[in-house]
């Protein structure tokens, strides 16, 4: 073994040790969450053991007894699902205009889109609530979904991806007589699949985990989404951390599944957007 290769072995081993230690720190809170969720009676004032004395799934059952948790999960799925699908559609269509359909004033409209990214959502809460009240949409799915159906971030991400598609492709299609709709559906969308998958994950992430707007617009326990239901479990006096953590585990699972499915696209998707 030469000196350099021995040094490589040492540095590679060191790298592994650091990376695995780091990963354990990243994952530890999740392990803790899972452990607490199967430790009945855990509270903030007791440090639970890593291996609980009497592990049991009873916090999960309690959770479903205490709050209409099945309904809460359904609410979250409907609100996040609809918001995500609509956000993908509206973003892709607008992105196509900004990438491929020039018109007078397009730059100004794009700046308007980008400006909406800088608006703190909290500024909008009061007027948005008043607006929804006027429309009679308080405590409805529609009221929760509407503000999430368009996203400047999504338009920006997909526009960047579309601008990396060579013009020759749509020019060839135009010569063959394809209109913008065909180019959009048959050339653009299939070619930017990684970026679409990336946006799918981020959009679902945002809508599934969003907290403030559902907290305000959904007024009854039967309409609540997961994050809101979780904080309402966090009572002032008797916070039941076993139930809270059971709910947390349940709320992470769908995101986790989606991420596993989309993982291979995500880095590709970000790389393909010219954000390199």
């Amino acid at each position, binding site marked *: 073994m030469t000196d350099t290769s021995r040094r490589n072995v040492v540095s590679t081993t060191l790298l592994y040790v650091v990376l695995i230690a780091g990963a354990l720190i990243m994952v530890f*809170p999740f392990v803790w969450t899972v452990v607490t969720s199967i430790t009945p009676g855990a509270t903030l004032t007791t440090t639970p053991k890593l291996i609980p004395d009497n592990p049991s799934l009873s916090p999960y059952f309690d959770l479903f007894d205490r709050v209409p948790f099945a309904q809460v999960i359904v609410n979250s799925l409907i609100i996040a699902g609809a918001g995500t699908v609509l956000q993908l559609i509206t973003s892709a269509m607008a992105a196509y205009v900004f990438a491929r359909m020039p018109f007078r004033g397009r730059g100004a409209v794009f700046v308007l*889109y980008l400006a909406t990214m800088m608006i703190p959502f*909290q500024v909008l809460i*009061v007027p948005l609530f008043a607006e929804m009240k006027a429309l009679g949409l308080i405590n409805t799915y529609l009221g929760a979904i509407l503000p999430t159906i*368009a996203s*400047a971030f999504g338009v920006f991400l997909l526009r960047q991806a579309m601008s990396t598609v060579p013009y020759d492709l749509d020019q060839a299609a135009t010569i063959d007589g394809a209109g913008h709709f065909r180019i959009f559906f048959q050339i653009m969308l299939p070619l930017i699949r990684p970026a679409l998958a990336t946006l799918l994950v981020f959009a679902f992430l945002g809508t599934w985990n969003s907290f403030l707007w559902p907290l305000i617009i959904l007024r009854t326990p039967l309409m609540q989404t997961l994050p809101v239901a979780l904080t309402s479990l966090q009572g002032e006096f008797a916070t039941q951390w076993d139930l809270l953590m059971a709910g947390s585990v349940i709320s992470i699972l769908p995101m986790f599944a989606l991420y596993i499915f989309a993982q291979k696209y995500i880095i590709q998707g970000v790389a393909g957007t010219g954000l*390199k």
Partner: protein
Amino acid sequence: MSTMTMQPPVAAPPAPPATAGRRRVRKTKYLFTVAVFLLPSLIPLLAFVIGPMISAAWASLHSWNLISPMTWVGLDNYAHLLTDPATGWAFLHTVYYIAVYLPLVYIGGLALALALNTKLHGRSFLRGMYFLPVITSWVVVALVWRWLLSPSTGVVNTALAWFGIDGPGWWADPAWSMPAVILASAWKDLGFVMVILLAGLQSINSDLYEAAALDGAGWWRRLFSVTLPMLSPSTFFVIVLSLINGFQVFDQVYVMTGGGPNNSSEVVVQQVYDLTFRYGQAGMASALSWLLFIVILIVTLIQFYGQRKWVNYD
């Protein structure tokens, strides 16, 4: 041209309007297509972002408690906010958050991206582990960290005690509430920065490294002369996004500290929330939000102007 040669000059005058008309029809059709593509996102943005933003501007000129009718006060809300030390403190806490958080996630994310871009066994598994906190909701993260950083029984202080270190009170101590929030935030966002920078690293042309190696450049030299300059667009993206999000930091503060203790972690958005829902001063809250928006806008514009100096699009 062909119509010109086929028809006598007398018949020519009606022709230009006809082609112009056809062109106008085509242009109208084109603009109609543009509208079909654009309106599904433009209408919601106008109705649910720009519109409410303008009503917030209107509300900021009024005294309003959400229930009774608004009373016109002109710029009084702004004058009050600009002279109230609480506003200064809220902005200062927000800047404190950004100033510590941003270098932490950038340097951490860069180190991770560099490490996980090498040929290691199980690197996609490791990437997945570092990305896990990103996909978790702030409510869950803040709850867990509130617990991990619990002063007497928390895991972090228990671990510190093994080394004989007397851990601080974290979110229960005014001096440590912001560090507690920053720690949880950096932990959550590290994986996101890592992914953006990994994507950037993967699009760097490997010829550049070969050329640098031929010139005898060592690891650090290659990092500073090749990697970082080529990574500048990703870095720019991370900084712009982190600053916009940093000024709007709220969920983790709300769940972990609620702005306390003693307002030590009261950030701008927490103050907007408190003004609206605790003190019933929606007009004042709207004015504060507008001040925040103006600050974010200025900071973002400065970055876009400044990027020519250091961002290298190639």
